[in-house]
């Protein structure tokens, strides 16, 4: 019954545009412990899908599967219609999929611009020396475009506030993601004003026609940002709803299983 409803929600959307990423019957078990029972989800360009559920529901596992850290035990992943299997996180990144981790994964004592290009530094000349000037210029342009307010792209990360750091992490994902950004609790540690800025950034990503999957514990945020909501409970996919066609009460009861 609930599966039928999911199907209808998915097909309803796919009229608009073909899915960028299509997860079908994803099952993940660690030894005998099932993290995800069965999950099917389509992500479309320019769409924000919120992944909600209590702790241990399987949200982080799903992010790790999409980003290539884990491989699903069963099920298929299709990227732009082609069946794909990512060997590791680098493979997923090479396909234009970026993750903003909960801990941001920034090197605190390095500059903003070096973090922006961490592991993918620009070089010049036959000796492949770092092209700092170009990295600084690129970062400045990006930071300006996304309106991330930081004192300087030469500032070290530890001299930035929590919101500024989050801004840098999202800007980095924006720089490299051509297709999909996964956000794991992007505003969990932020104050009200900084959260608003980060949400603006996320909407800017959406405007660039990038698909976004966001994990959030804040239902207010989920309803502010998302187009669809996918609810997980203890590894079970409870359902997918269009945000405009549901409300917080229904979502809460889906998350908790209480009516």
């Amino acid at each position, binding site marked *: 019954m609930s599966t039928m409803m999911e199907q209808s929600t998915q097909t309803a959307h796919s009229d608009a545009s073909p899915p960028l990423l299509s997860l079908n019957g994803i099952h993940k078990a660690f030894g005998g412990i099932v993290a995800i029972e069965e999950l099917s989800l389509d992500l479309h360009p320019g769409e924000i899908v919120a992944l909600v559920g209590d702790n241990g529901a399987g949200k982080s596992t799903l992010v790790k599967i999409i980003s290539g850290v884990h491989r699903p035990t069963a099920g298929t992943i299709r990227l732009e219609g082609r069946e794909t299997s990512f060997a590791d996180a680098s493979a997923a990144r090479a396909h234009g999929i970026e993750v903003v981790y909960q801990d941001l994964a920034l090197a*605190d004592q390095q500059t903003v611009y070096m973090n922006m290009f*961490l592991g993918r530094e620009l070089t010049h000349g036959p000796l492949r020396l770092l092209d700092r000037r170009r990295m600084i210029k690129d970062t400045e342009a990006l930071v300006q475009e996304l309106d991330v307010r930081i004192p*300087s792209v030469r*500032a070290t990360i530890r001299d930035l506030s*929590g919101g500024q750091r989050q801004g840098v992490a999202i800007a980095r994902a924006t720089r490299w993601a051509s297709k999909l950004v996964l956000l794991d609790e992007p505003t969990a540690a932020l104050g009200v004003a900084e959260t608003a800025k980060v949400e603006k950034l996320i909407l800017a990503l959406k405007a660039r026609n990038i698909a976004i999957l966001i994990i959030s514990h804040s239902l207010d945020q989920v309803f502010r940002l998302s187009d669809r909501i996918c609810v997980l409970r203890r590894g079970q996919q409870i359902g997918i709803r269009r945000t405009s066609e549901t409300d917080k009460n229904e979502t809460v009861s889906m998350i908790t299983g209480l009516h």
Partner: protein
Amino acid sequence: MSITERGSQGARATTAEHETGRTKVSSVWSRLQLQNGIVYLGFIAIFIFFAVMLHDDGFLTTRNLTNIVLQTAPATIMAIGLVFALSAGEIDLSFGSTTAVAALCAAMAMQTMPALVGVFAGLGVGIAIGAFNGAMVAWLKLPSFLVTLATMGLFAGVARTLTDLRSIPVINDTFTGMFGSGDLFGVPSLVWWTIGAVAAGHIIFRHTPFGAHVLATGDNPRAAQVSGIKVPRIRFLVLTICGACAGLAGLLYAGRLQAAKYTLGESDLMIVIAAVIVGGTALNGGKGAIIGALVGSLLMGMLNNGLILMGLGVSDQMIVRGLIILLAVAISLRDINR
């Protein structure tokens, strides 16, 4: 709950504003690669102190100043390796023993074979020991402190058994010219080696992706790993670089002293670590400076030289040097611990 949160946010914001000013000043420093200005100030202060105090004892003579550079050449080369290791969040305690083994192997090889074989033997042994340390750390996931503490003792023992505690003379003129008494365009070869190693080290450290990956690995290994940096490979390579530098240092010792002995490099451990820390490299990774290590090493050499010229006995020298290193390290770390 939300009030405390807001409070800490506010506090954080003001700190950030406060530090914006500081960042501007410090970015000038860092652009000049002078991340840790204190080592330069300390160097100048101690230089002036000795120049005044020891004016009549020949401190300022060209001969004495050149001597300082020549004597510190091996320590400077070891310091370059250590900057890579510390910046990557690792440490090498075995470079002193490696230096001795490398010098001995080079000297033994040259008893019957040409200089080139000696050079390859010394460097090869250094690289091999470094690669051994690196492999244990990178792939067996053992802490570098413990691995190199063990190999420090192990190779100190090897150096002793290799020659039965005897010293091996180096009488190969080509070799002693290249790594010791010779000169090129009137500049002693040891100075050339120092300049060459510092320049190469600085370029690799500051201006290549590899250097950036070393810093990122020491700063936040998880961030480095999810950014596609092969963290174990970096850990292996920095310790291998340490071994290679120790091997080269061994060649310089063998060339300058025209002999190799198991005691070579024995007393360098503390001095080299101090030179590197004073020069602005963080003990816990993520921050390093090759030029700073050079100046730190020269500072240690100058201190050594000055204290001898002042007529201090060996035990007094050790006490004064220990105190000065303590002070210098405390000042250099002040910035890191804020």
